[in-house]
């Protein structure tokens, strides 16, 4: 099979309008990948599937990756000659810029008929908030069906053209995308034999709330809290406050 570089060149010749980047994998495995232009993603995928030399008829693994915004500190070193005539000083100027984050879908393609692979292709969204639409490749490879639904569920990428885009693993009413790096889990009291650090702090809040007889912090405010019988402290949680004029 041709190398990824050759494939990139061939794709660039075939789809002059599309931007196809080679993403080098610095690791030992050296499985390099191609980042495709999301707008033409489906056309390129069709080409990859039907091209007689490639025949990538089998899409094995589809997954999402979350790349949050990253603060990058640039350090510029300048050598300033000392006005007093001493040795020149090195002054470091730091500037911070934010590299915008994105969500990425990664597809591992193989050929069952020619028995080669993998070719790894990636599609990137514009950002992590509102431009999260990518073309669905389910019409090209049916095996993406559940896996794209899973990415929609856990990462929040919307696949345009997916025939049945619903949450796969979490319930439909669920609002979050738990596999994102900035997801915060609901605060359940967690028992540990030797709790320490953050676990201990979180556990204490629950335990104190239980002693005070108020609904503990993990409890949703949707159900009205009840003061324990005999408790002198009035319940001080959100719904009660709302009831005040």
């Amino acid at each position, binding site marked *: 099979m041709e190398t990824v570089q050759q494939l990139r060149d061939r794709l660039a010749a075939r789809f002059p309008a599309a931007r196809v980047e080679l993403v080098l994998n610095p690791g030992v495995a050296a499985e390099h990948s191609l980042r495709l232009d999301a707008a033409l993603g489906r056309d390129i995928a069709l080409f990859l599937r039907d091209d007689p030399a490639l025949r990538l008829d089998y899409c094995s693994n589809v997954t999402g990756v979350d790349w949050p915004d990253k603060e990058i500190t640039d350090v510029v070193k300048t050598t300033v000659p000392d006005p007093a005539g001493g040795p020149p000083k090195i002054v470091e100027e730091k500037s911070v810029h934010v590299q915008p984050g994105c969500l990425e879908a990664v597809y591992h393609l193989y050929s069952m008929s020619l028995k080669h692979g993998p070719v790894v292709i990636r599609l990137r969204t514009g950002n992590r908030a509102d431009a999260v639409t990518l073309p669905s490749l389910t019409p090209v490879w049916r095996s993406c069906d559940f896996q794209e639904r899973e990415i929609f569920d856990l990462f929040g990428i919307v696949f345009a053209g997916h025939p049945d885009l619903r949450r796969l693993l979490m319930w439909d009413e669920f*609002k979050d995308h*738990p596999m994102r790096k900035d997801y915060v889990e609901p605060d*359940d*009291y967690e028992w540990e034999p030797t709790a320490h650090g953050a676990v201990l702090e979180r556990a204490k809040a629950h*335990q104190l709330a*239980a002693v005070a007889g108020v609904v503990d912090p*993990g409890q949703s405010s*949707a159900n009205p809290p*009840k003061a324990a019988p005999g408790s002198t402290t009035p319940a001080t949680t959100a719904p009660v406050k709302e009831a005040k004029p």
Partner: protein
Amino acid sequence: MSDAPQSTPASPRPAPAEGFPAAGNISDADREELRRHGILLTSLEELYNWGRSNSIWPLQFGLACCAIEMIAAATARFDIARFGAEIFRPSPRQADLMIVSGTVTKKMAPLVVRLWNQMPEPKYCIAMGACAISGGPFKQGYNVLKGIDRLIPVDIYIPGCPPRPEALLNGLIQLQKQIKGEKLTGPDAARHTRADLPSEYPIPAYGAHDLEPAKNPAVWTPPAPPSA
């Protein structure tokens, strides 16, 4: 006990009630003595508990890895039939025992509670495996309920990941002991005989971020802080 002199009763005997004395008022030593003469004395309570404890029908209901060990306990090598619990019923209406065998996820928890509510009293619950007890290895998971005892009452906990089939059998024997000791009347009567205790528990709803409510305070509250 048979060596004890007959003149000294093992326990002070309360005055018999009108009519027949209750079997519970006859001392163990006397009953043992009668039994050796071929007379079997029992009480309705004991007979009832003996029958129930030896035919516990579990709900056929597996959640995760632990369920495989539950099936193994039912096969020839471990043979749960020796304890009268081999009839796994697929319908909760016919089951006495719910073995929560595996991880209860938040998506599954409302259904587990609903199954529990559908079971008729008297009913018992075994939490089998670390996951059912506390979330086990998966307790950091956002979709994992940290112990089924947050939503329904649990009678027996069987630790292990997974517990061996022998451990499940031991749990079953413990449950049988519990059933045999149950009282039908009086202030410490068993749960199913008391009208003031609930038989059904609220089913949590799927919320936007978590179950609502995530736990049932009537069943479970976090333990008091060690220092307070």
